[in-house]
């Protein structure tokens, strides 16, 4: 971990009781869902983390508690530092408070997580799906969502597969 990052990590650890993981010089801090807005606000205002580089989620299915991590990758341009905040969320009706009031970029990125993982962001101004169609069921990046494939058809089994092939319906 970068020397300049140590006091910042220490402050967040003390204030929010955050656990710390380190790997290849990266610092990952774990905070609870209800603390995330405060943690982000403090990092932005006090420590100049003005850019939310990435906001995404990871699914650890079949593990249930916590099943997801919501990941906030923060960058400070002034100090040239990065820190990652992770919010563990349980599998049944996952909810995290929205970060749109801290970073505007969270708007679209949270819609993407809602779309892909089905994690709700409480207080989000525009909670619609962003990449998949509005009437789609399920959340594609969850581990229990099948990848899907197409069966190869040959001459000998063409008709047989054709019968059960899901063609677009009216």
């Amino acid at each position: 971990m970068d020397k300049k990052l140590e006091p910042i990590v220490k402050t967040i650890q003390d204030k929010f009781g955050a656990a710390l993981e380190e790997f290849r010089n990266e610092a990952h801090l774990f905070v609870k869902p209800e603390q995330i807005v405060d943690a982000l606000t403090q990092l932005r205002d006090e420590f100049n983390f003005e850019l939310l580089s990435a906001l995404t989620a990871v699914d650890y299915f079949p593990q249930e508690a916590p099943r997801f991590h919501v990941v906030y990758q923060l960058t400070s341009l002034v100090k040239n530092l990065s820190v990652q905040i992770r919010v563990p969320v349980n599998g049944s009706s996952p909810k995290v408070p929205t970060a749109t009031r801290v970073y505007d970029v969270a708007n679209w990125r949270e819609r993407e997580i809602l779309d892909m993982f089905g994690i709700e962001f409480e207080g989000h101004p525009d909670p619609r799906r962003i990449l998949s169609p509005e009437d789609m069921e399920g959340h594609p990046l969850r581990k229990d969502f099948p990848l899907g494939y197409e069966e190869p058809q040959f001459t000998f089994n063409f008709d047989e597969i054709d019968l059960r092939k899901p063609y677009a319906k009216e």
Partner: protein
Amino acid sequence: MSQIEEVSLEKFKHLVSERALTGETMLLNMGPQHPSTHGVLRLLLELDGEIVVNCIPDVGYLHTGIEKNMEAKTYQKAEVMTDRLDYMNTVGNNLAYVMAVEKLIDLDVPARAQGLRVILTELQRIASHLVWLGTSGLDLAAMSMFLYCFREREQILDIFELVSGQRMMTTYFRPGGVWRDVPVEFEKAVRDFIKIFPKRVDEYESLLTKNPLFIDRTVGLGKLDGAVALSYGVTGPPLRASGVNWDLRKARPYCGYEQYDFNVPVLNDGDVYARYLVRIQELRESLKIVEQALNKLPLGPVRSDNRKFVPPPRSEIGVSMESLIHHFKLWTEGFPAPKASIYSAIESPRGEMGLLLEGDGGPKPLRVHLRTPSFDNLAVLSQIVKGHLVADLVAILSSIDIVLGDIDR
């Protein structure tokens, strides 16, 4: 028919103004099929006459589930998916991916491979900016720009074909180095390009930079403030045109960028014209890097010889039992990566191209998140087009330089 309209308006009620609900302003679709949206992008516009009141971008028409697909492939095989993200920056996406994998498994890359990576990524940056310059010229009725820019881009794509056999989907960079060494014709091809290109940039500039028609249509349009840009996660040339000096090649040098002498163009106006000037200057800076990297290009291996991660050369397989085993294991099973997560980013022509890569101890990634710059850069569009004419919306959109494959993934 009227019922369908009511339903769709209900969905966007919180995004449009009161006047749209009473029918005072008009809601109009621009796209998904529209020549100036640079792909399959739909913009729902709320118009007061010719003035844009609100703009609601609708993305996802090119969504192909690349992140999900990568989870089902081994680390080596997942790389081909990254070419298909931002099809104007295929080499850069490969670089972002292989750097993330190398960071995850802690693999060193020989100096010659680093040099080749820099040369090709910077050539790709030039090619990408040329496509942007050509198409945005086309949007502003500068038809001939398109033809000139594509002439030079063709020369770069020929270089890619020379080294990798492919013009666009190269997959030339591999974890631990590059696929193979460049052919002998490579140096001459790059030198030829370095020789002609500065004059060609002057040509482009003579067509546009002081052209009163072009200035009329770009200066003062789509003003983006630096602080707003950061809050919206805008990176790359649009951020640097708004007065924020942030370039990952300078701030966090990778692939040996610290050895090369180049400037990061930064302008303060934050309008369409400033974004144009930043990219034009970047063309010259990238060429400087290419020349320096080619002069400094060391001899030596182009692949790491860590056989646990990098397949052995073909010549060894016939004579060494161990090499044969390594080759077989790597191509059937793949290599395992630790159960950990890393974030690694490069400066692509459009901004910060980042990867969150998480391994689960096996040969396939648990999660690959692609932080693609166009996605965040497009989100700011609705803020900067308010109050402009529809015709200017086209200029502003093209100045952000989006690639829909990059947004939708």
